[in-house]
């Protein structure tokens, strides 16, 4: 069984899956992530799946579970880097990934999770209000 490393960048956990995922590895990653969120108090999780050639129902369920578990633990999960062929296949398989936030790449994922992204909206809102006022 291959282990998938979990990196911590500020208050975000970053997982980049670069190995062929077998089912026991998937379950291990799911457990490790929940433990790491609790232990570190991370507010965000980015799972980079650009290295994955397929996402089948087992991997899809893990992604949805991690997103759900992180929500309960007050953290947000963003799945990034899904290949187009994988996206097309997942839809046809019937995997919706409901409740899973996605972004094109790690940078955009980080931007989504950044506390400033809320602030940026406020800045914009403030500017609009200034203009209106």
């Amino acid at each position, binding site marked *: 069984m291959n282990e998938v490393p979990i990196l911590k960048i500020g208050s975000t956990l970053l997982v980049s899956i670069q190995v062929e995922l077998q089912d026991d590895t998937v379950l291990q990653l799911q457990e490790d992530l929940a433990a790491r969120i609790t232990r570190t108090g991370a507010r965000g999780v980015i799972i980079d799946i650009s290295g994955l050639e397929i996402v089948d129902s087992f991997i899809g369920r893990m992604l949805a579970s991690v997103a759900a578990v992180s929500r309960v633990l007050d953290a947000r999960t963003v799945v990034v880097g899904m290949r187009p062929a994988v996206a097309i296949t997942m839809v046809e398989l*019937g995997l919706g990934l409901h409740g899973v936030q996605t972004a094109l790449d790690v940078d955009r994922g980080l931007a989504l999770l950044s506390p400033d992204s809320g602030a940026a909206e406020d800045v914009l809102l403030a500017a609009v209000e200034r203009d209106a006022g």
Partner: protein
Amino acid sequence: MTTTSPTTGTRQPVRDDSDVVRVRQAVRRLAQQARLSLVDQTKLVTAASELARNTLVHGGGGEAEVELVTSGLRTGVRAVFSDQGPGIADLDLALTDGWTSGGGLGLGLSGSRRLVEHFAIDTTPGVGTRVEIAAWAR
């Protein structure tokens, strides 16, 4: 029984999680050899992953046979998953999106049927299950 040569086919056991990965890799290698499009490769490998897992989890283990096939002028890949497990009593139900006898998402059979050009299933309660899939280059 079909005979397969090492370059055009493999027969491998499906006894644990690592075997499922090896089946995926064999299917991908032959799908590339058959010049399936990237999307069709991805669909075929995904279907194979679902079916190999079913062989392992529901069938109690078995084997997978993967080979290059030709149909007229087209080249393709066929994969056969077989086990001597409990079989499927109600096939229509098992092929329903979201139906699982436990533990899964219930998308393996119904979903993989959508992903490939050819899908055939032969199952007998108490005897076992055999699922055959194939896809051809366009």
